[in-house]
Structure formats: structure tokens, C-alpha cells
């Protein structure tokens, strides 16, 4: 219902000079009879319109920005249990995300997130889901199997870590694992584990305040090439209990996962989407230009893939997959939290199939070839934490795995060996979602329309609309959101050819995380395909702090650096709290397919390991890790489709 705040029509219309737009607004205004947020009935200005237009419909309030982590592992994931009882259980993981103080089992200390999350996907591995916990508990169904007894004995004799390794089955050849695990992967055992995941989600789901999206991780890793997908569904527990989380023991081919979605949707009504992650660890396989049989894409394949996979993780603890300096040599900021290797840690050559910017470009090329874009991907960020704690702050990073938590375990002579050493890991990965409500369906819909974006941790607020008729005053309007949806499409959307080959405007507003560092600049990353089918990319600096001037080559003088490497502190004496711009592509060609996404950079701040180094009395400049980090946000792209 109307709250009494009146929509300032004069203020809203002020920037709109086009007479036709005014008329159109008049047509819409009667729809705005009863706005939940800030609109109120307005007088009908034209009797004819008043008669024609619906008079009693609620108008659109603005969408709200929700923050969430789409990729949290609790100790119900076999590999998270590898650090024994150090990782949090599923309820602790939810309570932490909801803002409550919890105990971190690794140290017994009390920990609390700085700002509660609005939603979360617990994405425990579907493969042997909860197996460790079932064995630890001596679950009768599992203990009735010979594997269960064997693993239980191993836990008794050699501890939780040894048992977890055995349950991961690394000594069994990949192809033989499904058969090997047969007796513990019966539907009965899996249903019991899945129901427990669902029960925890239902206990913690508070629509309007905190949404526990039900999901899991499908962990296909052929030859240590990471093809993992986080899966989430829109439905509540009652429907989710009607299916089992599809695991790679059933198939390691993404085509089969999509087929499972299709069939399960037809059977139960549940909808799904899959978010590929860590393409940087896939040795070029994740966004390779062939299907699982090595065949080139068909239009059918591309349609299926883009339908089930609208968003990919661009950043998380195990590295950032936006691009690589070898692929984007002109991009000064391409070298961000890179980790180009196999899941096992073995270095690999840099290839296009491992990075999202290349995938977006290749998607345009494929669209030109077969008529459908297989990689029309929005960008999300997530932690992939295996401690159960979704932790993004550089100054309080709880780590990827719970093995090395204390400073002396992470750095210096006593550091613990690990494939994922926490000093190297990135303290980051969050998704901002522009949603109609905070509930399962609304968040799912936002992912499906790709109106989501990624950050490396800080809650940088980013809004992007592409369209026509924007004025500079729109950027300052308190109703920027409503104006944006009328004059354009939000991030994730597509612009069709405009009348007279006119160039679209990008209306961008970015604000810093209130508790964090200032912003350095806003960039637009453009990708396009020319008439010869060649892909191109270019990074434009479009808004920046201070009095800096663009150089002739489009670069910008450095913002500076206030980080003190003796105290791990910085000041907001440089940068800006808010940056906005109305930008039009100076090289726009109405005949070329293109995408545009926004990248917002913070001023330099100290990287997470620097805090540990200083605490241990180690000079951070002697370590082979960058001492500062340029935290950032990446919007989902908008596509231009002539």
C-alpha cells in the first residue's frame, strides 16, 4: 500500500523533454495508483487516457539491492570435512550469514559477519553428500554397507582427514568411481542426506529478511579440469524433496545435467539454473567451443545451454576468471587475483576457454555463425568457502579451507602445506541482486534475467541501464531506478536496433560500500565482432575521482596509494564515494553485435595476507604476493543485437 510518500511527478518529469514521453508517462501514471514503495495516485491529465488506461493497478516500485553468497560449503561437503571438525555445520553456516554470532569450530572463537547477507545458497557437493557426517554419527543405513564400515574404521584409526580422503575416492580411477560408490549412493541414503539439507534451508528461510535458496554443487572434474556448476532452484522444500541433487557420479557431462533439469522441471515443476565456476581452473574446457563430444555447437545446444546457465561466477576464493593479461594485453587491470591451473594446482597454459571475457566474445561469434549465443552470461561472485563461513573481508579472512587459519599456519616457516593455501586465496566473492522481493522466486528470477553483478567482496552499489533519452539529471534523481526501467534495459538485458541507427546511452551509478574504501574509477568493457567475424575488446575509462584527465590513449593517471605497509591501513583521502556518468560509445557501429559491462575499481587497500604478515613480524614486501588489492565490481553485460 501507499506509504504516503508522494512521487514527485514534477521532479520525475523534469528531465524528460520529449513530448511523446510525457504523453506516455501520463498513460502510465494511472497504473501507479497504489505503489508499495514511494508512489501515490496522481491525477489523470487526459480524460481519454484515463478511460483507456487501467486505473487500479499497482505501479512498479523500484527493485531493491540484495547481497548474497551463492556458493557456501559446510562440513556436509566431503572435502570441507577434510579438515576434520574444523568447518562449521550447516546451521552455523546459515546463522553466520544471517548475522548472528557463532563459534568457529576451528579455533573455538566467536565470529560474526560485519553485515548480514540477504540470501545464500548452501552448495554442498552432491557427490557423497553428508557422507562424513553420516559415518561420524554411525548412521545405520551407511554402516550396513562394507564401504561405510571401512570408512568408519579408518576414521577411528587415522582420523577425519584420512577418512575424507578415502570418501573422495581419489585413489579410484574417475571412470570407476560411480560403481565403487554404488552401495553408499543408493536413493535411500541420498534422499536422507538431501532431506537434511532441505530441512536446514527451511529452518533458516525467512522471506523478506533472509532467503535460503535450495541448491547443491555438481562437481564434474574430468582429469582435474574444473567443470563445476553450482545449481540452485526456485522451489521450497516440499517440491525439492521430490528430486535428488544430480551428482557427477551420474554423469560428468553438462548436457546430462541440463537434461536432468528439463525432465525434473516437467515432473515436479521445479526450475533450475546452473552457475559455472572457476573456469580459470578448467584448462580451457569450461567455455571451450565444443560440446562434450568435441563437436561444434549447434543452435539447439546453444539455446539449451544459455537457458540453464544465464550467470557464471567471475570471482571467488580460488581466483578470478574475468580475463588474463595474456588475453587482454591492453587492459591495465586484467591481472587481478589470478590462479591459472588445474584444480590440483598444476599450472596450465592460458586459454580463452578459461575466461569469461573471451567467452562473451566467442558467444557473439557463435551467434553470428549459428544464430544463437551460447554464452550470454551474467556475472556473479561467490566465496566457495569450505569453512561454512562466508567471509569476504581482507582484514578478517576466515579462509577457504579451515586447515590453515592461524597466522603462523598461513605464513612463515610453520605454514601448513595445502593445495589452496589461504595466504594465496582471495578474500572475496559476493553477488549483488536487483530483485523485486527477498524471496526464493524473486531472487531466482533476478538471476534468470541476469540483473545481478559480482564484487570481489566490498558491497559496491552498481546500477546500469542502457537505453535512450536519458539526461544527466536522471543520474541524480531519487527515482533513477524507475526512470531507468522506462528508458532502457537493466544489466543482463538486450538492446535491439534503435531508430535511425542511434547509439544507446549507458546510465551508470556506482557508490562505495559505506564501510569500505573510496572508488577510483568506473570503466566500461566493450566487446564486439566485426564484419570479418573477428572479436575485439576495449576498456573505456568513463568516470573517475579527482581532477585527473584522460591521456590521448584513453588511460588515466593512477589514483595513488594510501596503504601503509607497517600498519595495514589506508585512508579515504583519495577516490570518491560515488561516481556516475551518462556514456555513449564513441565507436558505436549500429551494424555490429556488441556487449558492454561495467567494472568499478576501488582505491588500493591492503591484501588479506598482509594483516597476517604484520602480525607475525614478517615484512609483507618480502613475500611473493601483491601487498595491495584493487577491489572491484563487475556488472552483468548488456548486449546490443542489431
Amino acid at each position, binding site marked *: 500500500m501507499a506509504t504516503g510518500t508522494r512521487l514527485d511527478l514534477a521532479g520525475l518529469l523534469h528531465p524528460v523533454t520529449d513530448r*511523446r*514521453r510525457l*504523453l*506516455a*508517462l501520463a*498513460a*502510465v501514471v494511472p*497504473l501507479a495508483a497504489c505503489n508499495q514503495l514511494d508512489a501515490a495516485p496522481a491525477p489523470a491529465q487526459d480524460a481519454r*487516457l484515463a*478511460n*483507456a*488506461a*487501467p486505473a487500479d*493497478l*499497482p*505501479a*512498479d516500485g523500484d527493485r531493491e539491492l540484495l547481497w548474497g553468497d551463492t556458493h557456501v560449503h559446510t562440513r556436509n561437503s566431503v572435502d570441507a570435512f577434510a579438515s576434520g571438525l574444523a568447518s562449521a555445520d550447516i546451521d552455523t553456516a546459515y546463522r553466520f550469514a544471517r548475522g548472528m554470532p557463532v563459534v568457529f569450530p576451528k579455533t573455538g572463537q566467536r565470529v560474526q559477519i560485519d553485515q548480514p547477507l540477504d540470501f545464500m545458497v548452501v552448495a554442498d557437493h552432491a557427490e557423497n553428500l553428508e557422507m562424513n557426517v553420516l559415518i561420524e554419527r554411525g548412521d545405520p543405513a551407511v554402516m550396513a554397507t562394507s564401504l561405510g564400515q571401512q570408512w568408519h574404521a579408518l576414521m577411528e584409526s587415522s582420523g577425519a582427514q584420512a577418512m575424507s580422503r578415502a570418501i573422495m575416492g581419489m585413489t579410484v*580411477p574417475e571412470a570407476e568411481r560411480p560403481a565403487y560408490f554404488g552401495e553408499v549412493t543408493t536413493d535411500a541414503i541420498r534422499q536422507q542426506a538431501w532431506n537434511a539439507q532441505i530441512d536446514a534451508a527451511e529452518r533458516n528461510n525467512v522471506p523478506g529478511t533472509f532467503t535460503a535458496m535450495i541448491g547443491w554443487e555438481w562437481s564434474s572434474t574430468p582429469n582435474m579440469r574444473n567443470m563445476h556448476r553450482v545449481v540452485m532452484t526456485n522451489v521450497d522444500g516440499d517440491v525439492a524433496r521430490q528430486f535428488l541433487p544430480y551428482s557427477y557420479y551420474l554423469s560428468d557431462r553438462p548436457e546430462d545435467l541440463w537434461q536432468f533439469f528439463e525432465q525434473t522441471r516437467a515432473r515436479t515443476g521445479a*526450475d533450475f539454473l546452473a552457475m559455472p565456476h572457476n573456469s580459470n581452473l578448467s584448462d580451457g574446457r569450461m567455455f571451450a567451443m565444443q560440446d562434450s563430444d*568435441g*563437436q*561444434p555447437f*549447434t*543452435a*539447439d545446444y546453444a*539455446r*539449451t545451454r*544459455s*537457458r540453464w546457465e544465464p550467470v557464471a561466477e567471475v570471482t571467488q576464493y580460488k581466483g578470478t576468471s574475468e580475463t588474463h593479461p595474456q588475453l587482454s594485453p591492453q587492459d591495465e587491470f586484467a591481472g587481478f587475483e589470478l590462479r591459472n591451473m588445474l584444480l590440483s594446482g*598444476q*599450472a*596450465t597454459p592460458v586459454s580463452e576457454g578459461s575466461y569469461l571475457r573471451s567467452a562473451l566474445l566467442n558467444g557473439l561469434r557463435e551467434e553470428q*555463425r*549459428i*544464430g*544463437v549465443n551460447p554464452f550470454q552470461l551474467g556475472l556473479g561472485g561467490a566465496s566457495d568457502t569450505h569453512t561454512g563461513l562466508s567471509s569476504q573481508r581482507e582484514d578478517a579472512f576466515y579462509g577457504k579451507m579451515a586447515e590453515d587459519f592461524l597466522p603462523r599456519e598461513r605464513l612463515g616457516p610453520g605454514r601448513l602445506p595445502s593445495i589452496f593455501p589461504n595466504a594465496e586465496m582471495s578474500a572475496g566473492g559476493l553477488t549483488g541482486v536487483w530483485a*523485486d522481493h527477498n524471496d526464493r522466486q524473486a531472487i531466482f*528470477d533476478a538471476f*534468470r*534475467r541476469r540483473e545481478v553483478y559480482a564484487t570481489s567482496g566490498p558491497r559496491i552499489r552498481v546500477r546500469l541501464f542502457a*537505453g*535512450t533519452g536519458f539526461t544527466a539529471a536522471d543520474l541524480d534523481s531519487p527515482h533513477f531506478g524507475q526512470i531507468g*526501467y*522506462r*528508458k*532502457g*534495459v537493466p544489466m*543482463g*538485458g*538486450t*538492446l*535491439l*536496433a*534503435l*531508430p535511425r541507427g542511434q547509439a544507446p546511452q549507458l546510465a551508470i551509478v556506482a557508490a562505495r560500500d559505506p564501510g569500505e574504501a573510496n572508488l577510483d574509477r568506473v570503466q566500461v568493457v566493450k566487446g564486439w565482432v566485426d564484419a570479418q567475424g573477428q572479436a575485439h575488446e576495449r576498456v573505456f575509462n568513463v568516470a573517475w575521482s579527482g581532477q585527473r584527465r584522460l591521456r590521448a590513449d584513453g588511460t588515466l593517471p593512477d589514483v595513488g596509494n594510501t596503504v601503509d605497509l607497517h600498519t595495514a591501513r589506508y585512508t579515504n583521502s583519495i577516490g570518491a564515494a560515488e561516481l556516475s556518468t551518462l556514456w555513449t560509445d564513441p565507436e558505436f557501429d549500429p551494424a555490429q553485435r556488441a556487449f558492454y559491462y561495467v567494472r568499478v575499481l576501488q582505491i588500493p587497500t591492503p591484501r588479506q595476507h598482509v594483516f597476517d604478515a604484520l602480525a607475525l613480524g614478517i615484512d609483507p614486501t618480502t613475500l611473493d604476493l601483491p601487498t595491495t588489492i584493487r577491489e572491484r565490481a563487475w556488472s552483468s553485460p548488456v*548486449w546490443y*543485437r542489431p
Partner: protein
Amino acid sequence: MILRRWLREPLLHFLLAGLAMFVLASWWEPRDDSGRTIHIGREDLLVFMQGRAQVYDADTFNALLDSMSADDREALIRDTALQEALYREARALNLAEADPLVRQRMVQQMRQILTDEAAGNMQVSDADVRAWFDAHQDQYALPPSISFSHVFLRAPATRAQAEGVLAQLRARHVSAAEAGDYGNRFLYQLNYADAGHDLVASHFGAGFADAVFAKHAGEWQGPVQSDHGWHLILPLRVTAGATPDFAQVADQAREDALADRRGRAAQAAMDALMQRYQIALDDGL
């Protein structure tokens, strides 16, 4: 004489020839009886360094080797030798047989070698490609698609209300770029580009998808009801399902025809290989 007879004895010739070959061979390639000498040359060091770094770039590693301190070089030599020693020990234990991963790798390599041998240099003629396309036209069929913009009126809006808005859209010749000014914000996209039936059905409902695919391009039409409310549709491009001309997909057809021929050749090579083996089954299997 006995000696002369011996000298004419073929067995003796054979033994002498064998001895000569042995002497010659040992001179060419001195044999290390113990197997405990590891000979290391510059090339061995370079191979080891590149293998360890997983980067293959001879120039860089040559320069790196030249600029190495004596200590580093000594460590490198030790690491290289250690790797060779471990390899020899593993061979002595016949680990290749015991370790399923190594076995798998060897099988994979052998399959690759046979496949390359059988199909490596294979070509297809223009006539082959054409014949392939003719036989596999279904594979290249383009499903129907539609590009459209729409104005959405959220339920409980009525059909009559939607018809009123349609009249305005038509009277004002509203373009796709202005569609956002009318009606409510839809929960998915404002614009859809070459969208397939499945996608439209998943966003709007199946009935809506059927209806919208029956529209013609160029003007505002509707109203059409979806799962969410009423819509006025501006179709910009409606593409009926079609089989493309050969020329449009010739490159793809060439790739596919070649892949098919290669696959067949590889399969034939595997079959030929199996011809040389017999499968003996355990009793009762």
C-alpha cells in the same frame, strides 16, 4: 682339415658376426651395467626445468639456465637426477602395470597414436561435403525464433485495459526503444532477440509462446495473456523454422563431414587391432 671344416661352419660365422655386432654396439653406446649412473646434459636440464614449470619456451629457459648461480644450478642438477632415479626405480617396480592411472594414460596415448595414424591427414572433397549435408539436413535445421519488445500489464489488469493501451501504442507509432514507458515492468526482459520457443515459454508460459510465434513482424499486436498478466507485442523479426541453404552452413558441414570420416577411420583402426586379438572368457562369464 678340421680347422678348415670349422671355418666353413655357418654356426661359427653366426657367432663371430654376433660378437662383432656386440663389440660395435658397446663401442657406440657404452652400456652401464649397474643402471646407477645418471648422465645429465644441458638438454636434460632444460627438459626438466620446462616440465617442472609446465611452460615450454626453450629460449627463456636457456637464458635462465645461463644466468643461474652455482648453488641453484647444483640444486637443479640434483632435482633432475632425483627425478630420473625415481623414474628408474618406478620402472624397476613395474609401477606402470600396477598404477591404474598410468595404465589409463598409456591406453589413451596408444589410442591417440592409432587414431592419428588412421585419420591424421584425412581430407574431404567438396562432393563429400555436399553429400554429407544432403544426408544430414535435419542436423542443420534452424528452429523458429522471434525478436520482440512488449508492454506488460500486471494481473489483475483486464483485457479491456490492455486493448486501450494497444490503441495508444498504435496511434502513436511507439517504437521498441520507447516500450518501457508504457505499462508495468516485466519480471524478465523487455526485449528478446531471436528467442526460441522454449525460452519464451519458460519466461511467459507455453500458451503465450504459441500465440506470440504466430504473430507477424512490424506492428503492435495483442493483447496476449501470459502467466503474469497481459502483453502487447511488437514483433520485430519472426523467423520460421527452416533448413538453411548449403552455402550458409558449408563450413560447418565440412567440419562435421571430416569429423565423421575421422571417427569412422579411427573405429576401423580399433576394429583392425581387435582382429589380431582373441578374447578368452573365464568359465561361467
